[in-house]
Every structure is written in C-alpha cells, then in structure tokens.
C-alpha cells in the first residue's frame, strides 16, 4: 500500500476519538477533495498540523496570498466540476479571501472555504486577529456557519459540500474556532443529501414544458441563448441535441463559452457588450428567445427597456429568484437544464430554420469584414491581441484550457479562442476581478494536469497576483502564461477614449520586465513584438516542459469592438470607433 492509500484508509476509520482539526481533514477526504489551496496562520494552525499526517492523501498547495488560494480553488472547481477548497487563518487571512468568495458567489462557483477563528471565549473581544468573518462573508456566500464545538465539524462540512455543489452552486464558508479545532470528538462521517429548509431544484413542470414546446414549434425566428448553467448542469450534450433537432441558432454568454463547440454550425457566437454583431442585433429581431442557465446580466442585455421586446421569452433556470428578476418571461421552466432540455428535445418538432440561420451568417460577414479580419490578420505593424489569442488556440488544436484575466485581453480571449470541449474557458465574469487569471490557471492546471493550460493576462491584472509565480515555481506547474502587454489599463483607457474625451486619467502603467521577474523564480520566458516571430515564440512556449511566460507587446490603441456602450440597446452595437463618434 502506498503512503497515500494508507492515509486515505486511516481517514476512513469511523467511531474513533480524534481532534476537531483531524476531523476537518478527514471530512475533506471523505468528500473526495484531492487538492486544497491555502495559507497557514495562528488560528488555523491545528488544522495545518493535522494535515501534516495526511499530506499525501490531500495535496495542499501553498499560495503566496489568500486571494491566490481562493481563485485557484475557483479555477480548480471550474475545470473539474468538483467543489474547490481553500483554507486560511482568521483576521487578515480570512479578509483576503473575500474577493474570491464574492467572485464565486456571482459566478456560481462551488467552493468550501475554511477559516480559523479565535477561541470561542474570545469572540467579540477584539482579540488578536479576530474579525467577524461570518458577518463579513454573509452577503457573498450561499451559506456560512461558525463552528465552536468539535462535535459539529463533520456534519457542518457535509452540509457545506452539499450546499456548495447542489442546485445553483456557490461558495460556502465555515469559520472554526481554535478550541473546536483542538477539542476531541467521536468521529463519524455521513454525507448530507437533504436539508429541509433548502430546495436545490424543483421537479420539471410538465404543463409548462408543453407550453414551451408549442412556442418553439410555432416560432419562425427562434434564438437560444445560454450561460454557464449548461456546464454547471452538465447539459452540454442535451444542448447540442436540442439545437441539432430544432435547427435553432445558439449564442453564449461569457461564462457559457466552451459549453458548445466553437465550430458547431449553429454556434453563432457571443452575446453582450463585446459579443458578436449577429447575436446582439438578432436578440431584438427574433420572435422567440430561449434563455438557458443564464441570468440576463446587464453586460448581456444592455438596457432592458428595449431588450427583446418583440419576442416571447422562455427561461430555463434552476434558481427561482432569477425568474422575472431582470426580464419578464412568458414561460418559466424551473429546474435542472439537463432534464428540461432532454424532455423538450423529445417533444419538439424537428426544424431547420435555414433562412433565419442565414441571417446570422450575413451579420457575421459584416462583422468579419469590419472587425475580425483586422483583428486576426492585421495589415499594419504591431501585434493585436486577437491574432495572438487565435494563434495560441490553433497551436493547441483548440484543445487547451484557456484562462483569462479581466480587461481588453479578456474580451479578445473570449472572442478569438476556440473550444472543442466544455469547462475549458475560465474567467471572472460577474465580478470582473482583475488578478483572477494567474491563480485560477494554477487551479485549472491542478484540475487538468494532462491538458495544456494557458492564461492570457493584461499587464495590469497580472501584477495584481504576480506573486503566484512563486506557487507555480514551487509546485512546478506547467502553466503557460501569455501577457498581452499594451502598457495600459487598456479597457479603462478604451472607455476614456470613447466616453471621456481621451482624458487618460491614470491608466498608463509601468510594468517590470515580466520575463526577468519570471526568471527570478526560475521560470523560463521570452518577449515577442514582431508578427513574424510570433509563431516561433508560441511553439517554443509549448515545447518547453513546465511553466513558461511569454510577454507579447501589443499596440495600445488596439481597442475591443464590437461594443454595446453601457446603457445602450443591444441593437445599437458599434462596430468601430467611427460608429461611436457618429
């Protein structure tokens, strides 16, 4: 038996007296956790001490900052579909997690975050490194709970995993006082499968299903839009089955990307602010809008006053609170996307919608001519983000896990990467958290060690969590980092250019030589500025074993288009800066 197997076996013994902190570790193993991310400190030391005896069964990744730990756990959760786990100490350790927890909440990422807390007798006394973590995290967690007695630990962890992963997933936080970690309990583990006050999903309503089918069968110009719910609900195959049978064109939100193969003939592109031209204008021309596993975020809808007013709307969604929150629906189908799409596919009539699909192709041709060609095959000197992203994607045969940070490069990544399998595009959508990319890529690589993992980051965002280069070096993680350096906080600069009279207030940013920084960590890298050297540089990056950093010089005025200006209608999408000044 290997050490790992021995430890796992030991963790499974029931009815033994152990400490609360050992119970934490055993419970994590019982829930199938294999990798956890964290950072030690006073109030969580007993848990770290217990971890020492299980370090082969439960791999711990020491990040360089707790924000790195939580984003890494998010990246891990997003590629694997499992619950991501991170641990931190009380006070500053816990507050450093908050950005990632808020990010996971708005992007429905299943997480269990464990924080140490001062001894229960000291709660509320402003003890050293005490902060009200349950209070702080309340608005940004799906559930949170403070544990003050060791006996409560196994049950609370079981509940935490169940809540994090079921229904609409989300982050859960457990705050464990030091005395609960030190105290003893008779350990027994049972998974949680039911909580009486919590309905993770509702059974499918058959009448509504029939109503939806009628609308679908009668529609002349139906349009399907989908979000991350497809992947969270493991409904990729059902989505494909549904559109293949009905011939309905489908577009994705930023977080829905990779749920449907990029080259599927009915995949018409991205929705929203920097989405594709066709999906945006056709939203206001279709007669039926079928939204699946998405929440009508304002970056997707633009102004609601003119959003799809002409269309009937079907909303397939697991979270009842999302129904009619932003957009009034005609038929709401509450429940699991996988089951609903499967049932719907059975009862709808086959169709082709040839003419209608052609309209999307025509819109694409317009965008291709006005935007895409010059992004991908620019005639002028100076590299564009689009061409770098596309070349990297092609080099990996569109099979890589692509992670992005936040900004212009994020939009270029979403627009120009291609995907052939789900759970392959990882980015911070709802919160738009700069600094997400690098640590999320660490989590993604640990979740998918046999796939290429590439992170595209901006010069600004990369510096927000640049310290995680240390984690990559220590763990020898083969993450490929591509910094699209435009020497600016590009996305903000773009808004200043378009909407603030080119008053570039504090968006010019000085950066270190990123390749030298990587070198200081023992990570190889290279610079590239010329088009004719790009392919070679990409090739060397992938051929180099282990991590690699490629810093690419990008033209600073390489703005992202198309664009639906904030508060505008999706049909008023701009294809070029000239459109904006019109």
């Amino acid at each position, binding site marked *: 038996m290997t050490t790992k197997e021995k430890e796992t076996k030991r963790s499974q013994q029931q009815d033994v007296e152990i400490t609360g902190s050992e119970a934490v570790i055993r419970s994590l193993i019982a829930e199938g956790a294999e990798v956890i991310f964290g950072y030690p400190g006073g109030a969580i030391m007993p848990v770290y001490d217990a971890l020492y005896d299980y370090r082969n069964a439960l791999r711990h990744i020491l990040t360089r900052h707790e924000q790195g730990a939580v984003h890494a756990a998010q990246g891990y959760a997003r590629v694997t579909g499992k619950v991501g786990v991170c641990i931190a100490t009380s006070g500053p350790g816990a507050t450093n997690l908050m950005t990632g927890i808020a990010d996971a909440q708005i992007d429905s990422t299943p997480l269990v975050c464990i924080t140490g807390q001062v001894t229960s007798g000291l709660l509320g006394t402003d003890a050293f490194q005490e902060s009200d973590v349950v209070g702080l995290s*309340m608005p940004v967690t799906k559930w949170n709970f403070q544990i003050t007695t060791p006996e409560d630990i196994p049950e609370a962890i079981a509940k935490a995993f169940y*809540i994090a*992963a079921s229904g609409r997933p989300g982050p859960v936080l457990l705050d464990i006082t030091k005395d609960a970690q030190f105290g003893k309990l008779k350990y027994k583990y049972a998974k949680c*499968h039911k909580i*009486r006050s919590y309905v993770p999903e509702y059974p499918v309503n058959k009448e509504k299903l029939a109503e939806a089918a009628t609308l679908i069968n009668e529609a002349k110009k139906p349009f399907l839009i989908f979000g991350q719910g497809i992947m969270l609900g*493991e409904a990729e195959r059902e989505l494909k089955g549904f559109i293949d049978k009905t011939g309905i064109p489908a577009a994705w939100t930023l977080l829905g990307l990779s749920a449907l193969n990029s080259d599927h003939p009915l995949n018409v592109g991205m929705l929203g602010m920097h989405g594709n031209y066709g999906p945006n204008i056709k939203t206001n021309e279709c007669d039926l809008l079928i939204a699946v596993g998405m929440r009508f975020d304002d970056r997707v809808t633009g102004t609601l006053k003119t959003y799809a007013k002409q269309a009937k709307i079907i909303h397939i969604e697991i979270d009842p*609170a999302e*129904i009619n929150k932003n957009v009034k629906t005609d038929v709401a189908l509450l429940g699991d996307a996988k089951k609903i799409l499967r049932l719907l596919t059975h009862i709808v009539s086959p169709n082709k919608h040839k003419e209608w699909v052609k309209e999307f192709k025509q819109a694409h041709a317009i965008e291709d001519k006005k935007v895409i060609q010059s992004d991908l095959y620019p005639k002028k000197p100076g590299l564009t983000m689009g061409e770098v992203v596309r070349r990297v994607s092609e080099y990996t045969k569109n099979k890589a896990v692509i992670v992005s940070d936040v900004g212009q490069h994020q939009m270029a990544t979403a627009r120009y990467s291609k995907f052939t399998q789900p759970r392959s595009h990882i980015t911070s959508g709802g919160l738009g958290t700069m600094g997400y990319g690098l640590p999320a890529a660490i989590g993604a690589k640990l979740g998918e060690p046999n796939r290429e993992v590439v992170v595209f980051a901006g010069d600004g965002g990369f510096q927000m969590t640049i310290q995680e280069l240390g984690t990559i070096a220590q763990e020898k993680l083969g993450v490929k980092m591509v910094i699209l350096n435009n020497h600016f906080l590009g996305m903000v600069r773009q808004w200043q250019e378009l909407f603030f009279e080119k008053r570039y207030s504090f968006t010019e940013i000085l950066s270190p030589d990123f390749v030298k920084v990587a070198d200081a960590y023992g990570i190889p890298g290279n610079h590239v500025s010329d088009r004719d050297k790009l392919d070679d540089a990409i090739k060397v990056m992938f051929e180099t074993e282990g991590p690699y950093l490629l810093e690419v010089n990008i033209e600073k005025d390489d703005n992202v288009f198309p664009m639906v200006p904030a508060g505008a209608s999706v049909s008023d999408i701009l294809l070029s800066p000239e459109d904006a000044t019109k």
Partner: protein
Amino acid sequence: MKKEFIITTYSENHIGLTNRITIILTRRQVNIESLTGSESALPGIHKITIVINEEEEKVKNIVKQIDKIVDVLKAFYHTNEEMIYQEIALYKVLTKSLMESDEIEKLIRSHNARILEITPEYTVIEKTGHKEETQELFQGLNKFGVLQFIRSGRIALTRSPIEKLSEFLKERDELLEKVETRSKLRKAN
C-alpha cells in the same frame, strides 16, 4: 405604486439568520418599517414578520431572494388586507396628570386601552391596535405629556384557520424526495 406589505418567513432558528434576511432588504435600499421574530406553532421553527413599504414587483423579487436563503423554509408576502395584524404600544404619563382630571381615564376607556402599572410617580398605559390607533392615543395622551412611548413591531396571522406548517413540512419532505439532484443521482450510480 408603493404600499405596505407584510413579509413572513418561516425558518430554522439559527444565529445570524435575521441578519441574512435584512441585508437582502438593505442592499436594495428598502427601509424596514418593523421587524418581529418569534417561535411559530411548531417548536424549532422561527417566524419573522417584516413590514415594508414598496412596489409589489420589488417585493416579489425580495421574497424570492429571502426564500433562497438556505435556512429559510419558506417566505411569503401579503397585503395588509390579507392579514390580521396588531401592534402593541406602551405610554408612560405622570400619575399626577392622571389624577388631576378624568380626561386621561376617558381616553383610556374610549381607546380600549388599559393601565399596566400605577406608582405614585408614573402610570404605564398599554394599547393594542393598528398603528393609526396607537398613534391616535399617543396624540390624545400627549396633551397631558407622555414621558415615554414605545410601539412594537407588527405581528400578523393569515386568515386561514390553522398554520399549515406541519402540512407544509410534509409536502416539503415529499418534494425533496422527488427531486433527483445530481448528488443523489451520483450516489445511485
């Protein structure tokens, strides 16, 4: 149009739950007119009654957000007309003013209020009713000087004969058995 709505929640009696509920309101800039918590007819199940002044559409969304809280069993909203409700008010006046004339006593009688406690110094009067009624009595008494005044949050019951909680719990149990969540499906595999 904004009007008064009563939100009722049934929940587990867990630490911090009231906070979780109120931040849903404060985040949406909704002012809480009153909030009361108590046990329900079923032991272990806590009931919170909140009064807000809002548009119905917004109230609907808020109630769904409250309902989504893991420890909340169910949240409802009602208009005032749909519920029987009361508030209780206490008034403290000088016993001297009570003795000086029979005006205060008349007020107490005509408002169906009662005296809770008389000391040589002060007298405490209690009145149960809707806000307008307890307010009206306040105005009357204040002519003689009210030393202290307090009004409770609203408590409210629906017009259906019994609290259908035990039935609700049974139905909930059946519902939870019926939905095959992914974790259940995995367990079965």
